[in-house]
């Protein structure tokens, strides 16, 4: 937290701006990348989105008021960029949400994108069956171990609703594992 404050302060000094921002990227790139990857699934798409996220962060960091944590702020940008990307991709493919889930599902089945463990593939396939919001909440909670309060800030949803979403997501995934 203090480290983030130091990085932000260094970013606001022209001489150390580049170095500070490079450190911010190093610190958060993996967390942000995987958060995006779990939403957009494809690596090339995630690569585009993660770059856009950090470019937006570069442009907006001077105006960042530090009311929230830097990580939360970056997650929020990543979430918005990912959702915008999904929407634009849906629009460009002229497909419905259900059809788009099948597109993602095909990517998930492509084993070259995974480490190869069957259970992980199965979990990813189960996630593709979830509604968008439940999938996001599950990803944030389960994979990123994010607190509900932080998720609430990122997604703009109440803690109670997030807990309910996570509960529903877990039930559906358990059901998917039981049936398949």
């Amino acid at each position, binding site marked *: 937290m203090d480290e983030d404050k130091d990085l932000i302060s260094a970013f606001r000094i022209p001489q150390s701006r*580049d170095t500070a*921002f*490079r450190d911010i*990227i*190093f610190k958060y*790139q*993996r*967390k942000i*990348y*995987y*958060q995006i*990857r*779990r939403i957009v699934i494809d*690596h090339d798409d995630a*690569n585009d989105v*993660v*770059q856009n996220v*950090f*470019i937006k962060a*570069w442009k907006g960091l001077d105006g960042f008021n530090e009311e929230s944590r830097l990580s939360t702020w970056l997650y929020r940008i990543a979430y918005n960029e990912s959702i915008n990307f999904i929407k634009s991709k849906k629009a460009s493919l002229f497909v419905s949400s259900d059809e788009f889930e099948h597109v993602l599902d095909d990517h998930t089945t492509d084993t*070259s*994108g*995974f*480490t190869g463990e069957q*259970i*992980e593939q199965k*979990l*990813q396939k189960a996630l593709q069956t979830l509604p968008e919001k439940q999938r996001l909440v599950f990803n944030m909670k*389960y*994979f*990123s*171990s994010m607190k509900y309060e932080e998720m609430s800030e990122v997604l703009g949803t109440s803690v109670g609703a997030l807990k309910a979403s996570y509960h529903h997501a*877990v039930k559906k*995934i*358990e059901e998917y594992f039981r049936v398949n």
Partner: protein
Amino acid sequence: MNNKMGQDKEQDELFQVPEGYFEQLPDRIMMRIHQEAPLKIVHSGSADGVQKTVIKLFAYAASIAAVFLVSIGISNYFHDGTKSLAATLTANEIIESGVLYDMDESLLAEHLTTEDLDDVVLTIEDEDAITEYLIEQQTDLTPLEF
């Protein structure tokens, strides 16, 4: 359902990434940032700014020139123009032209001589017009006693 898949899932790389991806990513991002920055300046920054400033300066200069020319025109009309008009016209011509209604009386007094006034032959209409003018000017019409 607890986090059974791993301790720190964002580190476990459930999804594969190309080798060396995270080592190169900061450089790629910084390169894009610096590529976009000069473009931004060229497209929407200084060039446009300079153009706008030049256009504004021209507009200011044109406005100042226009005001200057108009003021010269007005000045000539009220001074040189009226003087030459008064100097070239006879008294009757001045009265007939109606210029008197817009003219400063002091300017008239300056240019009209007694001889000029001898030439003036007033009709009843002229007298009515003069009376009307004097009433408008709230002039005391009580006959003077010498």
